[in-house]
């Protein structure tokens, strides 16, 4: 029974999801679902911190682990869940999405995410990632009346199934080489092989890295992201951009360090390739976007590349740099999507931002803060996050990659600041947006606060960002 205590946060989320499903027909018109989801997310975050006080532990035959790394990401996932649920209200009303089911899917997807970040074995990792993606396929297509939404869901589903197959193939090859799926056992089996001697193992590692690269939308496995984000409602796109990416990075970090650590040199090459391609392709294609969610999708692809820079080093310090990046990225991207979602139809197109500063100066200022953070301009968290990952790449000897990252940061300033220019230097063309609900303000306030604190005191996370 003590094993179950390791999964208290997951159990809380799953329990709330079941309760919402049971009561679905009776709470459709009430705010019960959103309140329940936010409460469950808070309880899960508290529980994640509380179980950590027992010290590091493993359970379920070594499959599930409890350490600072897993609990860090669990708190982050809980925050993503709560913030997404809070700013979903408007898009749910507009499209008559069943609320109870929507929130239950968010909860179950988060349960899968939490399971994935706490697994210490390839099989529960796969299981968690599958639970996460299966729920997100439905979330992307939940606006059944819209053909674009259905199309996005089908595309995401087909590509996602392919990526899952790649991942499970890598897992099975790893099992073939080492005879185990447990991370520690894989590491000890690999230490007996010579580094780089087993071609099959390198293929296996490449396939696992590829499967995980899909979850974080790193080039060349990024093609689903722009279509899925565009077709999904803004809150769901935010949930994918923040949650799926954080979990993919967490899994990638754990797999690289705990399981395949002895092949660090090969992994560095693979990750450096993924990171470099993502940064360049994401930043350049984003330049030509006119749809806000597509723009943010390409931005998220570029950010996946930046976050991977930390893992390239293959050290614990590099992994904590990636953790810091993931943490700040989640809040700044949720803040940006929060503004997009609150503006409704107007927020979808880049032109909708014309003259926003004149009509809603406060909102425009917050949007400017998030955009600055996404670009990486001090004093925002985006700068602190980019600084630590680029520093980590330099320390690992990837000087060219670091220069490329800085250069592409400058390129990205163009498309982020274009939105700012539209907001501040153009006259309004549309009627002023309706007043934002209080819940959306809460999301924006929390995200802005984290973005500012992270920028002003970049070391504030260092205590918690402990690598596995």
């Amino acid at each position: 029974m003590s094993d179950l205590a390791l999964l208290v946060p997951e159990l809380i989320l799953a329990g709330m999801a079941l309760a919402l499903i049971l009561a679905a027909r009776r709470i459709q018109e009430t705010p019960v679902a959103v309140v329940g989801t936010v409460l469950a997310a808070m309880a899960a975050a508290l529980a994640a911190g509380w179980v950590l006080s027992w010290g590091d532990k493993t359970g379920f035959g070594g499959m599930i682990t409890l350490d600072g790394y897993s609990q860090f990401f669990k708190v982050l996932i809980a925050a993503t869940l709560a913030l997404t649920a809070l700013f979903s209200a408007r898009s749910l009303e507009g499209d008559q999405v069943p609320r109870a089911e929507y929130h239950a899917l968010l909860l179950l997807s988060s349960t899968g995410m939490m399971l994935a970040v706490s697994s210490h074995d390839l099989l529960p990792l796969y299981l968690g990632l599958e639970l996460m993606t299966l729920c997100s396929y439905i979330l992307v297509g939940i606006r059944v009346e819209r053909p674009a939404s259905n199309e996005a869901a089908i595309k995401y589903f087909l590509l996602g199934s392919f990526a899952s197959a790649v991942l499970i193939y890598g897992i099975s090859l790893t099992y073939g080489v080492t005879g185990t799926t447990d991370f520690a056992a894989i590491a000890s089996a690999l230490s007996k092989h010579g580094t780089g001697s087993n071609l099959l193992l390198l293929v296996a590692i490449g396939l696992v890295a590829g499967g995980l690269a899909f979850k974080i939308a790193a080039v060349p496995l990024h093609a689903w992201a722009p279509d899925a984000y565009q077709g999904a409602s803004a809150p769901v796109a935010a949930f994918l951009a923040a949650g799926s990416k954080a979990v993919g990075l967490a899994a990638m970090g754990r797999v690289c360090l705990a399981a395949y650590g002895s092949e660090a040199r090969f992994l560095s090459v693979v990750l450096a390739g993924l990171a470099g391609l993502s940064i360049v392709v994401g930043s350049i294609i984003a330049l030509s976007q006119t749809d806000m969610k597509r723009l943010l999708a390409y931005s998220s692809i570029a950010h996946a590349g930046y976050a991977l820079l930390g893992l390239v080093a293959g050290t614990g310090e590099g992994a904590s740099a990636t953790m810091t990046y993931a943490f700040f990225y989640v809040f700044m991207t949720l803040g940006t999507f929060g503004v997009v979602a609150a503006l409704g139809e107007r927020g979808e197109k880049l032109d909708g931002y014309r003259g926003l500063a004149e009509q809603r100066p406060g909102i425009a200022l917050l949007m400017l803060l998030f955009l600055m953070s996404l670009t990486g301009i001090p004093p925002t968290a985006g700068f602190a996050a980019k600084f630590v990952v680029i520093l980590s790449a330099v320390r690992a000897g990837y000087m060219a990659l670091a220069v490329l990252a800085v250069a592409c940061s400058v390129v990205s300033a163009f498309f982020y600041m274009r939105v700012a220019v539209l907001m501040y230097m153009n006259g309004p063309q549309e009627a002023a947006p309706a007043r934002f609900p209080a819940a959306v303000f809460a999301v924006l306030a929390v995200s802005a606060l984290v973005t500012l604190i992270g920028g002003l005191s970049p070391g504030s996370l260092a205590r918690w960002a402990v690598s596995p």
Partner: protein
Amino acid sequence: MNEYIGIAVSFVLAGGIAAAMVALGSTLGKKHPTSEKLAPFECGNDPFSLPMGRLAIKFYLTAILFILFDVELVFLYPWAVVYRALGSVGLVEMGVFLGVLMVGFVYAWDNGALKWQ
């Protein structure tokens, strides 16, 4: 390998005789076909049909609900085999599992999936 040669020979012989019977029957025999004679003999549905045939979408929902119970049974069988070894913890765990599955069923029922309109 030697013990398999006999089996191979009997396969070849059986296949050869069967093929010879069919070939002789279809070349030497007289044919007076009628539509009744050409119909598949007592084989249920028409085995060949064009793919334009329509199936009510309601069957899809029923099939999904069927999978719910199917999965349940798949897990119940191995559980029943080791039931004594698991003891009361196993009983409670299976109860929780069935409960979770039932939530899905209740949801479907509640939302009218079982109404045949």
